[in-house]
């Protein structure tokens, strides 16, 4: 970052819009009329492998940041957290775990990341 022109350098961007079509995120549907277990199946069939890669990495990174004790406390309580979540979130996470092939505990960790790590 030494090439930045001073610590407070910034210049209003005026030509970034419109962005390239190729950067648009892909669109999927979530059908709320389906049972919660089924809702995420189409998306997980496409994105499941990438999700597993991310969550495995995040697990390792969190472990290195918060240390063994806090990490183990969080991991050992995830099943209890998962089952106590309000309908339909627990059921949807079970569906995500099923169709991605990822353990439910890690799907739960991913979904409560905001609360667990605002510190």
């Amino acid at each position, binding site marked *: *970052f030494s*090439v*930045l*022109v001073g*610590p*407070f350098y*910034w*210049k*209003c*961007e*005026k*030509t970034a*819009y*419109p*962005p*390239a079509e190729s*950067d*648009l*995120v*892909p*669109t*999927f*549907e*979530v*059908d*709320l*009329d389906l049972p919660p277990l089924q809702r*995420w199946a189409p*998306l*997980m069939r*496409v*994105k*499941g492998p*990438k*999700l597993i*890669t*991310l969550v495995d*990495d*995040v697990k390792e*990174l*969190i472990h290195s*940041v918060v240390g063994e004790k806090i990490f183990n406390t969080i991991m050992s*309580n995830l099943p209890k*957290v998962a089952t*106590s*979540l*309000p309908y339909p*979130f627990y059921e*949807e*996470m079970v569906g*995500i775990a099923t169709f*991605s092939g990822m353990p439910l505990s890690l799907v739960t960790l991913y*979904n*409560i990341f*905001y*609360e*667990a*790590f*605002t*510190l």
Partner: protein
Amino acid sequence: CTSIIAQDPEGHLYHGRNLDTGLFLGWDAKNHTWKVAEKLRPLTVQLDWKKNGTTLFRSINFAGYVGVLTAVKKDKFTFSLDKRFALNGGYMGLLEWILFNDYKQSWVAFLTREVMEEAANYDEAQAKLSKTRLLAPVYFILGGIKPYQGCVITRDRDNFNMLSLDSKSIDSKLWFLVQTNYDHWKTPPFFDDRRTPATKCLNQAGQKNASLGLIYNVLSTKPVLNKETVYTSLMEATSGQLQGWIRSCPDPCWPW
């Protein structure tokens, strides 16, 4: 994260946001990227949430995440969520949930999903986001369909503070709101001041140029755009428009 709501002279409201994440979770020194941000980019999707065969609302999500961080409900409201850091943040709520079975509080992103599914209008969404007991502090940014329907709701677990486009006196109403992970009544720290560039760029352009394009350009201004930025999205409640673009920040670029 940075969220912006702007209103043009005719009273049309535009809402945009950068989602920034991954700080301190693995810096890739070779590619100058945050590892988590890099892995979240291919997981970013737009979701059309269908009910009875029609679109109930649209959101930009990370695949596998059942909550909602960025969304629009056509003809009703637009919504984004910015992280609020606090020493007694989600930690306390999470401990109460686990140790004392205190389930009379809401998970932030699950509450927002409920709001997107159930709230019938801007006022209803605003009330629910302001008053529900939460596990963690957060900033909710809400835009509507009528002039001056725009607000930043600063939440701790039980209380809220609201800054609205019409918060000030009648002759000095605001035409935009900028939220950058810091309380609006405090000065952001010098090492993470995205508010000043965003505010100055909006003021430089002026209200007559308020548009989705202006918001995108401001969100593309470094350090508003930085190495943590995963996506930029633009929303408009009246049309129900929502678009999201994967972002990268070429060097030279701030790490956050």
